[in-house]
């Protein structure tokens, strides 16, 4: 589904990604772990071109999205993204937050979008918040809304960029529950996280990144119980 070939990314003199090649299959749940500064988030943000790769190629469903002729807006409509800091629009109600993009991109008309939004809100248990503003919600509620907002575009893949890192510990669970439910529904997911429990439970494949490269990958069982690389062992010893 997503094919990444020899991706590099530099910010000025700093090379963050040093040649990453990876293939993500449809329906697969991939979790990226690794120390901070290892390039996990940059890799994820390259997948929908929030960061422009310095070199390399990304192919999404047979179409090269790093090609200049590609309409990135169309591609992004099929790739939902959830951010660490939620990035809800504070000037709109929750319902408007969710329906803005589907309506403006012509995916649905207003009635369809609102119906869809209310169904999704019900799924995450926040149907009573439709007319609230983001400022009135807790962090966990905001992140669940952010997930709903991305889902309302009916994406084919969901990208999660440390979705629970900015949350109070007691709110992490409610967001992870939504993500687990999403995983069960068969959604293709790529997730950068520090929640090792979540990775172990949900992931089909875990990628360990360090210094701009994918150092090791495997099933959660392989990575967590029997890591091959010394660097992976050191990292897991610190976080587990």
């Amino acid at each position, binding site marked *: 589904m997503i094919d990444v070939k020899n991706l590099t990314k530099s910010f000025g003199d700093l090379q963050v990604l040093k040649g990453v090649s990876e293939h993500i299959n449809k329906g697969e749940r991939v979790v990226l772990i690794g120390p901070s500064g290892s390039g996990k988030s940059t890799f994820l943000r390259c997948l929908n*071109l929030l960061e422009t790769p310095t070199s390399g190629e990304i192919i999404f469903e047979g179409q090269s999205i790093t090609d200049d002729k590609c309409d990135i*807006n169309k591609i*992004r409509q099929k790739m939902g*993204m959830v951010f660490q800091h939620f990035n809800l629009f*504070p*000037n*709109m109600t929750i319902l408007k937050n969710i329906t*803005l*993009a589907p309506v403006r991109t012509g995916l649905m008309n207003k009635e369809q979008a609102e119906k869809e939004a209310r169904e999704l809100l019900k799924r995450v248990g926040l149907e009573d918040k439709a007319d609230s503003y983001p400022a009135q919600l807790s962090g966990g509620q905001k992140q669940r809304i952010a997930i709903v907002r991305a889902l309302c575009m009916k994406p084919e893949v969901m990208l999660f960029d440390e979705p629970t890192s900015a949350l109070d510990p007691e709110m992490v669970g409610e967001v992870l529950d939504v993500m687990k439910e999403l995983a069960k529904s068969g959604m293709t997911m790529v997730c950068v996280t520090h929640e090792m429990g979540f990775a172990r439970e949900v992931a089909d494949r875990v990628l360990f990144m360090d210094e701009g490269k994918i150092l090791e990958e495997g099933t959660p069982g392989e990575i967590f119980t029997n890591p091959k690389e010394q660097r992976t062992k050191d990292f897991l010893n610190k976080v587990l």
Partner: protein
Amino acid sequence: MEQFVAWKAMMAANEPTTLWQQFYVLFYQAFIENDRWLQYLNGVVTTLYVTILALLLGVILGIIVAVIRTAHDQQRPGHRNPVLGFINGLLKIYVTVIRGTPMMVQLMIMGLVIFASSRNFVMVGALTLGINSGAYTAEIIRGGLMSVDHGQMEAGRSLGMNYTDTMRFVVVPQAIKAILPALGNEFIVLLKDTSLISVIGGKELLYAARSVASRNYEPMYPYLGAAIIYLLLVMLFTWLLGIFERRLRASDRR
């Protein structure tokens, strides 16, 4: 009226007069004699007219300049549009020249050089003030657009919305709220700067005060009067702006 003529004669003859008599005479000749208050009133109308024209021009120019410059700065690296780069360069020159030269000099050049043959001083004045205000407003708006968290733009774009829609529905509404105090400041400066167009012959409030002062050889009351009128106008403006701002903030406090 009779009182005024009599007391004025006493003052002219250097006869002893009370403070009240002096005040009465000077005030009367500054504002009431020969219906001079009409001159001030016409001046105020011109002042407000010029302010509104310049304000509209300034805001329109400001939005255009700010949006183009922000769009230029936010291009993806490696995808720079050369036309946008050229326009951005021109706009930078505009902002630099306008902010780098005194308002008075700009008025003199516009009124006495570029539009030297025009007799419509008020329009020339409004045009100059508008162009001047546009440069400052552009920087205020640009600051507002940049103050909105970058994550807002990213969130909009990651949902597949294009740049224009994300700007229009997400970034600009948040920017307006942030820049309203600074914009109000700029409007007040603009209102007071209209007094400068009297140097190229625009018959606004200060022009009226000055002509009365030179006719009577008595500057205090006409200029004090003008000052008070400007102050009242600015206070009125501030009050209206406050109402507008409270209305915008209503969504924050639910």
